[in-house]
């Protein structure tokens, strides 16, 4: 019940295209859904996050879509650039029991390659 399932494992997109990564969760106690971006040799860095009270959040070229009833959320990268090539992780956490939102359950990751 703690799993977060992420797909696809890898994604190749042409420059200017749209990259879409999907995640599904099982634990209904989750109420915080961040996406992290990781470059080789670096730690994950928060990209964008959403709470379940909204169905969509946009920051620049990055948009999270959230479907509470389906327990699914996705990351859309518009106008994908070669500099976006990285590994992307979805994650989920909740405050149940006084725990911390930093106690994250991560998806398996998607390796995104954007070709120039």
């Amino acid at each position, binding site marked *: 019940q703690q799993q977060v399932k992420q797909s696809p494992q890898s994604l190749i997109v042409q420059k200017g295209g749209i990259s879409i990564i999907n995640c599904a969760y099982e634990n209904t106690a989750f109420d915080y859904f961040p996406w992290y971006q990781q470059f080789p040799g670096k*730690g*994950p860095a928060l990209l964008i996050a959403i709470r379940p009270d909204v169905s969509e959040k946009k920051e620049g070229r990055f948009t999270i879509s959230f479907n509470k009833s389906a327990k699914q959320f996705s990351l859309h990268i518009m106008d994908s650039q070669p500099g976006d090539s990285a590994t992307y992780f979805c994650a989920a956490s909740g405050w149940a029991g006084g725990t*911390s*939102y930093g106690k*994250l359950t991560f998806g398996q*990751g998607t390796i995104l390659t954007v070709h120039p």
Partner: protein
Amino acid sequence: DARVTQTPRHKVTEMGQEVTMRCQPILGHNTVFWYRQTMMQGLELLAYFRNRAPLDDSGMPKDRFSAEMPDATLATLKIQPSEPRDSAVYFCASGPDRGTSPLHFGNGTRLTVT
């Protein structure tokens, strides 16, 4: 630009040796997390602290792993004795524990146990 600092960045050791990884969280952050990243298991939470007190270490193999915060500027993760299956990248992350304030990750310690 405040950042989480981890040392060493790389560590190669032989099976059975003790390994200590260190983390300096961002000043003012009162929650500290240890995550482990492997190809097979992805990113897994090992332990976390709030105000230096351990809150959850259920992700750690208790017989060989230990995590401590001797003071607010230092968190340590120790493996004794180390085994080849411990080879992974170990990340420390810190956060201010205010609602959904972002978690900041260090650049990790890459551990190789031969």
